[in-house]
């Protein structure tokens, strides 16, 4: 089995699973459906293990169309605003992947995949698909609450939420304070914040 054929096999299986949950295919292994103020994105990264099997996991993303013009400019619609790997939403958080060799294996995994999507992924998406709840979580001082956003990305998303909710001065202050803190930091820590600051400034 080659990676491309593994992905094709997986895609045809997942298309069936996702459509049963009202998801539509955006591109190979990426499916979406609207939910509250966002669109939920289910993406299934797939790799070929040298020992033989195809391995796949699931990432649950939320894309807030109202925030995207400030955050990523013209990014492709499959890029989520926030995202969590499914295994980090489970109790033990350890990295796990489903494995398959052929269609039969995937059929055997169907119940487990559907169960995880309905019991873990969709409740997560439902809970954080509105801006007030997203903001509340991002305002937390505990890094573990920031989904898998780094410190800079978290501030960017938080500022964009503040801006869209009408707190424009607050949004600019969030970013200005962050830039001041990172005055001597590497460009990787300043440039993303500067880009969002510029877009917010232009939108006023």
């Amino acid at each position, binding site marked *: *089995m080659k990676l491309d054929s593994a992905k094709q096999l997986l895609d045809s299986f997942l298309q069936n699973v996702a459509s049963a949950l009202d998801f539509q295919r955006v591109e190979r292994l990426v499916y979406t459906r609207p939910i509250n103020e966002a669109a939920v994105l289910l*993406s299934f*990264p797939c*790799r070929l293990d040298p020992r033989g099997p195809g391995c796949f996991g699931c*990432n649950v993303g939320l894309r807030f169309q109202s925030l995207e013009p400030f955050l990523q400019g013209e990014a492709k619609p499959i890029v989520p605003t926030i995202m969590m790997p499914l295994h980090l939403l489970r109790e033990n958080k350890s990295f796990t992947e489903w494995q398959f060799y052929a269609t039969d294996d995937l059929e055997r995994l169907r119940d487990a995949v559907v169960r995880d999507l309905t019991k873990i992924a969709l409740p997560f998406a439902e809970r954080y698909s509105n801006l007030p709840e997203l903001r509340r979580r991002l305002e937390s001082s505990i890094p573990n609450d*920031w989904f*898998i956003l*780094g410190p800079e990305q978290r501030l960017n998303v938080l500022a964009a939420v503040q801006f869209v909710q009408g707190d424009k001065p607050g949004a600019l202050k969030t970013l200005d304070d962050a830039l001041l803190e990172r005055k001597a930091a590497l460009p*990787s820590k300043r440039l993303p914040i500067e880009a969002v600051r510029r877009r917010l400034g232009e939108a006023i």
Partner: protein
Amino acid sequence: MKRLAHFWLLVAVACLFGSLSWPIQALGHTSSPATCFSISRYDGHNASKIAYDAPLLPEYGYDSDSVLLANEKGNQTTRPDGVFAKFAGFLAAKTGVNANRLAGARAVDDFIANAEANGMQVVGRETTFNTPFGARRMDVILLNPQTGSIGGVEVKSSLGAFKCFDADARQQFSADRWINTFGATSVGEQSGITINNTLKILWPAPPEP
């Protein structure tokens, strides 16, 4: 009449050696242990059936690429056992490459287990980032839940791979420097992971179970 008898004798000898040419060819390849393994293994079985049985491939030390290619070539012959004799050198070479890949996979698994045991979280595996120096695929993406920082880790399972500085390694090095300086966001099915640091580590593979 005597000349004709000699002619037929020569034909008979030629046929005899012709029929023995395959075993001789096979024996000629047994200098490599991997080759010897592949011939002896597949001689006793229906090669084409086993070759396509994907779950068994790693047990025999093959990856799917090598076996599929051998079978494609094998379609031109009616002797599946001869296929492996004929392409034994090729298979041996591929098996060596596969051994490195298997060791690499074991090393990454072991590294992940250790990272998680020490409080790190794994965000993704084999995640791709675009840079001006080409795509960079990191083995593991780690998240430190205490600080929220996310980084990419390249696991090298041997000192040779770790110290290697060929064209591929230089591309990785350049892409890593770019990510460490300017950051990058993942693409493809794992879109949306932003990292601004990478590191390459030497993590020898644990012995095979």
